[in-house]
Every structure is written in C-alpha cells, then in structure tokens.
C-alpha cells in the first residue's frame, strides 16, 4: 500500500532530481563556454576528434543520404504526375533535402553513432577513474575531453550535413535521370532555383546547433556516469535519446524563427 504522503515524497524527490539535473546541465554548458576560449587549445586532440566524428561517419552518411534521395524522389513522382507537375520534382526535392531532410538525417545518424560513442567512451573513462587520473596528473579533463569533442561535433556535423544533402540530391538525380533525360547541371540548377540564401543560412545554423547539442549531451551524460558498467550503458543510451529529443525541439524552434525572419 502506497499512501498519499509517500506518493508526495516520491513526486517531490523526482521533481527535485529533475531541477537539479537541469541546473547541473546548465553549469556544464556554461563551463564549456568558459573553457573553450582559454588556453591550451589541444588542437591535435581536436583534429583527432574531427577525424573520429567526421571521416568515420562518412560511409554511413553517404549510404543514408543516397537512399533518402532515391526513396524521396520515387515517392514524390506519382503525386506530381497526377497534377502534370513532374518538372517541379527537382525543386521539391531541393527544398525538402536542403532545408529539412539533409540536416535532420545527418543529425539523427550522428546522435546515434557519435553521441552514443562519446557517452560510452567518457562514461567508461569516468567509472574506471581515467578522468580522475587526468585530474591528478594536473591535466584539465574537461578541457581535454569535453571541449575538444563538443567543438569537433559542432564543426564537423554541418559539413557532414552539407555533404549528405549533395549525396541525396545526386541519388535523386540518378532516379530522375533513369526516368527521363536530364543533365546533372540542369537538375542541380532546378533544385537550387527555389532555395534562398536565408534557407542555406537556416540550414547551416540548424546543423551547428545540432552538432553542439550532440556533443554537449554526449559528453554531459558520459562525464557524469555512475554505477559502473551499467552506468556506461545508461549514459550511452541517454545521450542518444536526449540528443534526438532536443534536435526535434530545436528543429521546430529554428524553422519558426526562420519563418518569422522571412515574413517580417
């Protein structure tokens, strides 16, 4: 039997835990901005992390982008054919991929692949006292491990998103080309015809925010991992779930802000 006072206690404890967590995450993010602009910059580790995040994600991004391009074209064609508007296909695909699908698909893949990797790596370092070992060797583990990883995802994910969009457009072009004669130049020209400078800026801004989110969530969860190996798995899992959740919220906010800018 759980009485009302016990329920109240559990609820207040959960609420307290939630706000403590939010406060800790805020402090962690603030510390990142403080440390990011202070020497030493650990450039070698930053390059190494960019390589880990960027180059190692390329095969997956290439495959996914290519398939998204093909599938989206295949599914859009019948609807446009009904209205005799197949000539609008490249523009439709351009808008969909550059403005939404390219950044979002890249962010979700990286949240899964990179975010979980960072969460698990730092979580494992935390529970095996490797982070403490850095600290007692007079090395700032936050700067060496967190700042470099967050900067790497913030720099690399926008580049990956642009690459993903171009690969998706290429997949789409191949599908269009199989159905009708069309040169690659005219396809890309049509695809970009309806894309404005604001769209490109919005898209790049989104990916910078997604990159930062994936990095900060992954490092936060890993850096604060507890409870041994179970905690490592939990950190990796939470890094993915929370990053994806935040990415969707950010998507809505950024699109809304971009629309306000466009209309006013």
């Amino acid at each position, binding site marked *: 039997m759980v009485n009302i006072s016990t329920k109240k206690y559990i609820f207040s404890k959960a609420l307290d835990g939630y706000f403590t967590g939010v406060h800790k995450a805020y402090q962690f993010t603030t510390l990142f901005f403080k440390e990011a602009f202070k020497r030493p910059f650990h450039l070698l580790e930053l390059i190494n992390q960019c390589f880990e995040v960027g180059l190692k994600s390329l095969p997956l991004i290439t495959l996914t982008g290519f398939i998204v391009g093909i599938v989206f074209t295949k599914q859009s064609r019948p609807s446009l054919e009904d209205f005799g508007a197949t000539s609008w296909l490249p523009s439709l695909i351009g808008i969909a991929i550059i403005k939404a699908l390219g950044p979002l698909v890249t962010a979700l893949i990286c949240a899964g692949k990179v975010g979980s990797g960072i969460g698990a*790596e730092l979580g*494992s*370092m935390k529970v*095996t*006292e*490797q982070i*403490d*070992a850095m*600290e*007692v*060797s*007079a*090395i*700032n583990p936050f700067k*060496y491990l967190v700042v470099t990883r967050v900067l790497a995802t913030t720099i690399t994910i926008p580049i990956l998103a642009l690459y993903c969009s171009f690969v998706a457009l290429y997949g789409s072009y191949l599908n269009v080309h199989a159905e009708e004669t069309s040169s690659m130049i005219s396809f890309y020209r049509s695809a970009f015809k309806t894309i404005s400078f604001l769209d490109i800026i919005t898209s790049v801004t989104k990916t910078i925010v997604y990159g930062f989110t994936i990095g900060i969530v992954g490092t936060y969860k890993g850096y604060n991992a507890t409870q041994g190996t179970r905690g490592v798995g939990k950190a990796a899992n939470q890094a993915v779930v929370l990053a994806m959740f935040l990415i969707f919220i950010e998507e809505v906010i950024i699109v809304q802000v971009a629309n306000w800018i466009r209309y006013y």
Partner: protein
Amino acid sequence: MENLKQHSINKDEKVISITGLYKSFDDLEVLKGIDFDLFKGENVAVLGKSGSGKSVLIKIIVGLLKPDRGEVIVLGKHVDQLVGKELDALRIRIGFSFQNSALYDSMNVYQNLAFPLTMNVKNLSKGEVDRAVTEVLDSVGLANKIKQMPSDLSGGQRKRIGIARTLILKPEIMLYDEPTSGLDPITSAEIIELINEVQQQYNTSSVIITHDLTCAKSTGNRIAMLHKGKFLKVGTFEDVFASDNEQVRGFFNYNFIQ
C-alpha cells in the same frame, strides 16, 4: 625490508599535515575527525576494512574531494583552498596510483607515460620524452612492454605501468590506493618491493592505502588503523599489533586466519 629500514626519515619536516578532517556524503559520515602527519621520507600504511574511508582520505589529500571541515596541508599548501593552476602545480608534486591502475585504454604504454609529461612540461623534444619514458619503464622493470596496449597487460603489469606514469613527473609524495588488491601473492610481493624501491630511488614519502597486512608491514614505517572514519591506532607495526583495542585485534586476527 632492509632498504626500507635504512631509509632516512626527517621528523622535522611534515609533507602532509591533517587536522580535524571531516567528510560526509549526503547523510553518510565517512571521515569523523582525522588527525594525521606524514614526514619527509616516510611511508605510512593506512589499514582498514572496505568502506572505512581510506580512499576518501587520499582523494582529499590530492584535491579530488573537498573536506567538509578540517585542515589539509600538503607540501606547505592548504589543498582545500587551492584551485586552477595552483592546485595543478601541487598535483605535479604528488603521484597517485589508482586501485585499478586507471590507464588510458585508448593509448599504448608509451603514450600513457608520455601524456602527463608532455601536457605539463612544455617544449620537450621527442628524444627527451623517449628518454624519460624509457627511464621510468626501466625502474618498474617493464621496458619491453612499451608498445603494448593496457588491455594486453596483466593486472600486476598494469599496476606497475600506473606507478610508472606517476613517477614520470618525479613526485615528492606517492599515494597508493590498494596497490596489492586483486593480485596473486607473488605479484603482490613484487609490487611491495617496487613501492620500497620507489621510496629509495625517488626519495618519496608515501601513503599506502591497503587492507593487506603483509603489504602494510613490508612498506609502512608506521601503520594507521582506520575504522569507521577514525584512526583507532597509529604507530609502528609492532605497536599497532600489540594494541588491546577490540577492532584492531579483530582486524589482525581475521587477516592471520585468512
């Protein structure tokens, strides 16, 4: 043992001085008024059961944890009042050997040893780093493992590399957290010998956290018996062993039966 006894201890120079130290985690009081001194050149073994607060004590000494109350002076500095570069400058002078070695598992042995050196001493040439790494690896007897990854090493070898990693910064104080736990008796004896060699070769003062009586007896010039956050008895092994205190007797009897 012979070397240990010959080692000179300077009773006029305290390298660690702790007074009235208290530490709690939420409602759990771990340290309840610790007073402790470590003299230059001395090895003190802190004995106690799991959960008695031994590891918390050395984590406070190195500044990984902040005390709730009390004064912790290490090499003349109030550790709990230091932050940033001042704390880093002190930590370079303290070596900390972790219970599970805490080797960086993404780096090989060479990188594990070179990492703290290159991060703390600027403008070192590759040759200087190589020489320093080879020197400490020689001193722990594992020069042939330089290219191995930590996962390829045995428990005893990992402990040795962990000690070597701290020695590369030439510390004045060594803190050992359970140096023989999880090791077979022969490897334990080798680690004990290494701790004594380190004291001789690098002229360090050490705090050895352990629940292994053999380790405490062989490495400690003094023994401090910690129980439920308080020192029950501090003195030579013979003094502590002769104590009438029920808890101390219980700990010794249990170890000998084991």
